[in-house]
């Protein structure tokens, strides 16, 4: 089994027996109110999905991530996981303090504060998103963040159930799962979409040379126009029931937000899947992109900077349905012209579905279309 990133699977989840005690202690501590997305990030830390991180980044690691895409110890890490706070909150917290992290008044974790530092929004946005355009969702979010960052380690004592708890597994569990299934090589697939036939083609092609397929949709905050979490789960369970073998493919959710950081997020996504136990990671066209901020294959090119990532990327170019070939093809193998091709245009398919229309069966499985159309609001508003 592939070792976790950094060699050790981080576990910052307090054993059940100690949780009531820590909950009481937290009530006496200064507290910091955080967002739901940050709480999910801390669950990712606690479960080891973000190994080797043990909490929000300290200044040195933060700087190294921005400048080199690595932690100070050298491990690849491309997306900065940080806790931003307003000046007023920062003024009542000092390095060495233990503080309670809360969401809507409920404490869920203790943060052992090891660092408190100011940061530069412009440098952050430019480095992470490669743009300062405020229309980019990551850039606008950056400019809404507080002026001070707190770094340190956490002990999480209050977990959320998860939106789809039956599909939510921790890395320690997926590692046992893969071993139980006898999978030595596993291809991870990241998604925030209902599947069309092109996705199925990519997944099954990767499965042709690995033992198992790990489909791992992101459940959490997404931009308007994306499929809702409920639609993603319904469509994938439908696809599994009709077109996948249970002994070679599995569906597990990952509760965290999309960040739309393109190439940097692709590396970050690969690291998360490595921690789940994946040996391979599928990277398609414009992975984690938004608008036209990144080149179609920029995310794939980014992997060449990290030969020590430990997880092998599987790159896919654009694909289409070729009427002449009678199947999904790509420009490397299909000799026919564009007049024979049906393209998988996500925007067009979403627009048809929005009007209650059915995309061609050559592009989307009828069972998947049915599953989408059963939802009155299939898209994020």
């Amino acid at each position, binding site marked *: 089994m592939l070792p976790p990133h950094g060699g050790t699977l981080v576990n910052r989840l307090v054993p059940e027996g100690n949780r009531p005690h820590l909950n009481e202690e937290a009530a006496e501590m200064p507290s910091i109110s955080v967002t739901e997305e940050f709480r999910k990030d801390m669950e990712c830390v606690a479960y080891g999905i973000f190994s080797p991180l043990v909490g929000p980044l300290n200044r040195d690691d933060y700087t190294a991530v921005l400048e080199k895409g690595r932690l100070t110890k050298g491990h690849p890490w491309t997306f900065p996981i940080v806790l931003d706070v307003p000046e007023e909150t920062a003024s009542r917290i000092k390095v060495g303090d233990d503080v309670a992290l809360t969401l809507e008044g409920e404490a869920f974790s203790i943060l052992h504060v090891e660092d408190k530092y100011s940061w530069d929004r412009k440098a952050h946005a430019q480095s992470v998103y490669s743009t300062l355009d405020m229309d980019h969702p990551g850039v606008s979010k950056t400019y809404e963040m507080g002026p001070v960052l707190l770094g340190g380690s956490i002990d999480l004592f209050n977990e959320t159930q998860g939106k789809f708890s039956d599909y939510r597994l921790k890395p320690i569990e997926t590692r046992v799962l893969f071993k139980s299934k006898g999978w030595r090589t596993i291809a991870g697939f990241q998604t925030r979409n209902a599947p069309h036939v092109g996705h199925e083609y990519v997944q099954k092609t990767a499965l042709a040379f690995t033992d198992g397929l790990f489909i791992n949709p992101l459940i959490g905050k997404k931009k308007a126009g994306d499929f809702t979490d409920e639609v993603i789960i319904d469509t994938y369970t439908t696809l599994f029931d009709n077109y996948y073998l249970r002994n070679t493919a599995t569906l597990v959710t990952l509760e965290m937000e999309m960040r739309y950081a393109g190439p940097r997020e692709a590396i970050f996504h690969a690291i998360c899947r490595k921690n789940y136990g994946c040996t391979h990671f599928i990277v398609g066209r414009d992975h984690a992109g938004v608008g036209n901020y990144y080149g179609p294959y920029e995310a794939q090119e980014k992997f060449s900077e990290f*030969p*020590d990532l430990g997880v092998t990327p599987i790159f896919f170019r654009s694909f289409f349905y070729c009427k002449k070939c009678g199947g999904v093809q790509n420009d490397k193998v299909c000799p026919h012209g564009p007049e024979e091709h049906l393209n998988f245009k996500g925007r067009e398919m979403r627009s048809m579905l929005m009007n209650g229309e059915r995309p061609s069966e050559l592009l989307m499985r009828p069972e998947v279309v049915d599953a989408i159309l059963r939802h009155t609001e299939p898209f994020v508003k």
Partner: protein
Amino acid sequence: MPEKNSDSSTIKIPHDLYKKIEEKIEGTSFTSVEDYVVRKMENEFPAEPVYSKEEEELIKERLRRLGYIE
């Protein structure tokens, strides 16, 4: 052999291999050949087992309950 009072050890690798690694990491964020070799090796050998036998059994029970395994 590990050196006293240190958590690292010295190994020797052929000069030509060293040179090849140096060329490979040029322009990347690796700061040294040592850095590169350590990262590569870390991916081969986990620092500690990820779960105990007891944990494995408990996890299998949950996986069975959820229908992931039989």
